[in-house]
């Protein structure tokens, strides 16, 4: 009976030419995650964004999601299934979904797609990413102020541009305070293995490192820092629970505002394919509370954050030399986005040899 009434009202609305149908049938905004929605890191950050828009738009939208979707042929099937099931907008949230999303987007021109962290787009396929490196510059500055032995260790996953960019930005921030700062990089060759991440962290602490930063997904390194009484930075999520005395701050991914903006555009009919790469000023990237540090360091960090937000400071501003001493950026010159997104070299001061990527 309810259904019939609903159908009648919908038809009536359509006849009258009312666009009120949106209220009766929620628009489907769908998500694809590479991990579980409670992984404590990357996929969870996206899911928090999903929950935020579900709350904001209420019964105007529905937000089904698929989790643990492996990158590869399965991804294409999963995305296509969503496209067939009546999704108006699909967010595919992992770099490895890029080609699958491109293929499905070509097949379903009426459905809109958004791919996170990729570089291929189309008329109905937008891309979005976050300038994580802006946050890492602040971490570097804090590390340079708080380390007793002018150095830190960077627990890194894979030698892809995103991670190399993070390492360089951290070092650049540190060198702006302490030119003799040395950054040790230790590769674990995994995004997700708490045991290995902890092993790497312990090895670095045993070698006398007193600041840890990580570019991997679990809180294990933070836990090691807490146990051994040194400091560390959270990654992707606020990790203060794992390191109440250890965490100095964290770079936190908050996709919710971006998702909200895009769903607004979808509902207004103003959605366009764009390539979005926002940072601190747009709120897509947030800094965790500045804790466990002296007031002057906290003040410096807040000032740097404000300067990055206002555009006064760009982390990659010359003069910067490459690791071998050859010049990269002249004084005052800023790095362009293309170079950053394909970054495959270290800057001066990084104490590591870059493993060949690919």
């Amino acid at each position, binding site marked *: 009976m309810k259904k019939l009434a609903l159908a009648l009202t919908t038809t009536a609305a359509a006849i009258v030419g009312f666009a009120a149908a949106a209220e009766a049938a929620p628009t489907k905004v769908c998500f694809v995650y590479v991990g579980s929605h409670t992984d*404590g890191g990357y996929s969870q950050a996206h899911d928090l964004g999903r929950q935020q828009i579900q709350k904001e738009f209420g019964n105007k939208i529905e937000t089904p999601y698929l989790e643990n979707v492996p990158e590869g042929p399965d991804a294409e099937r999963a995305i296509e299934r969503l496209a067939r099931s009546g999704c108006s907008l699909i967010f595919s949230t992992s770099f490895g979904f890029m080609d699958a999303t491109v293929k499905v987007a070509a097949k379903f021109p009426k459905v809109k797609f958004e791919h996170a962290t990729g570089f291929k787009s189309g008329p109905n396929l937008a891309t979005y990413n976050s300038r994580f490196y802006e946050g890492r510059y602040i971490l570097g500055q804090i590390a340079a102020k708080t380390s007793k032995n002018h150095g830190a260790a960077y627990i890194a996953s894979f030698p892809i541009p995103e991670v190399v960019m993070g390492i360089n930005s951290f070092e650049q921030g540190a060198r702006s305070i302490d030119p003799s700062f040395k950054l040790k990089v*230790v590769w674990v060759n*995994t995004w997700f293995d708490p*045991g*290995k991440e902890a092993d790497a962290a312990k090895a*670095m602490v*045993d070698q006398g490192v007193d600041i840890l930063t990580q570019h991997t997904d*679990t809180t294990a390194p933070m836990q090691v820092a807490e146990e051994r009484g040194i400091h560390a930075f959270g990654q992707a999520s606020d990790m203060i629970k794992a390191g109440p005395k250890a965490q100095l701050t964290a770079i936190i991914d908050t996709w919710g505002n971006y998702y909200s903006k895009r769903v607004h555009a979808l509902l207004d009919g103003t959605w366009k394919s764009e390539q979005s790469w926002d940072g601190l000023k747009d709120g897509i990237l947030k800094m965790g509370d500045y804790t466990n540090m002296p007031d002057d360091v906290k003040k410096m960090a807040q000032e740097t954050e404000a300067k990055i937000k206002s555009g006064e400071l760009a982390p990659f501003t010359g003069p910067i030399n490459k690791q071998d001493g050859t010049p990269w950026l002249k004084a005052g010159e800023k790095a362009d986005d293309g170079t950053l997104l394909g970054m495959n070299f270290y800057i001066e001061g990084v*104490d590591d*040899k870059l493993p060949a990527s690919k």
Partner: protein
Amino acid sequence: MSVFEAILLTIITASTPLVIAGLGELVVERSGVLNLGVEGMVIIGAVAAFVGAQISGSPYVGLLTGIVGGALFSLLFGFLTLTLVTNQVATGLALTILGLGLSGMIGEGYVSVPGVQLHEIVFPLLSDIPFLGPVLFRQDLTFYLSIALLVGVNWFLFRSRAGLKLRAVGDSHGSAHALGIDVIRTRYLAVMFGGACAGLAGAQLSLVYTPQWVENMSAGRGWVTLALVVFASWRPMRVMAGGYLFGAVTILQFHAQGFGVGIPSQFLSMLPYASTIVVLVIISQNRRATLINTPASLGKAFVPER
């Protein structure tokens, strides 16, 4: 504490779960059953231990729930392969997949909850002996259990009557049956022992190694264990040696990176696997001895005549 001591302690933590799960699987395989579900049993042990410790507030209760969880989960494998005579390889693989999924479901509410840590036991006086003290007498319970398991399994398999029967079942279940040994019962007990050990290894992961729960946190250690048992040619001491070698190379390659050794990190990441295989292949060069050690009925189903 010197750097050397610190490195040694980290190696012990990294190796202990491999040794424990390996010794368990060794007993299972010696009874003629091939259980490829170690990874699944380890992760079930990890989540059971974490949840148990959270609810009770005691890491020792957690340790116990981990062991019981692993054993109960292995019972499912036992029922399917021993009673219903399903294919052991396929059932073992299914057990791993089920374990990973089930543990994720059980642990859903426990992600990013601060863990209860199993702390080391300090023996007065003994712990103060330079070097030996911290390494041998300031460890958590799982390390002592791993040593006890090594001694116990060795004694049981090669010195006890029950162990002789178990090996007989593994070598020729038909003959063992003819001699009046209850093959199915023996194998059930062995499978449950293996499950309990895998559960204990999982408990070590979520209470000692990294005191937290995250999905898939076993990260392939169960598979490493399975390889260790085969390459160790079903000898307990070699499982121990292989486990420690694997742990040592894992930790040392991070130190090598930290000290700036110019070797590609991908190569260093591979080293634990490669070196363990190479060393275990070398020590099991004696083909005759290896053949004698290989349980002849391994992986074969037994259906008693009625």
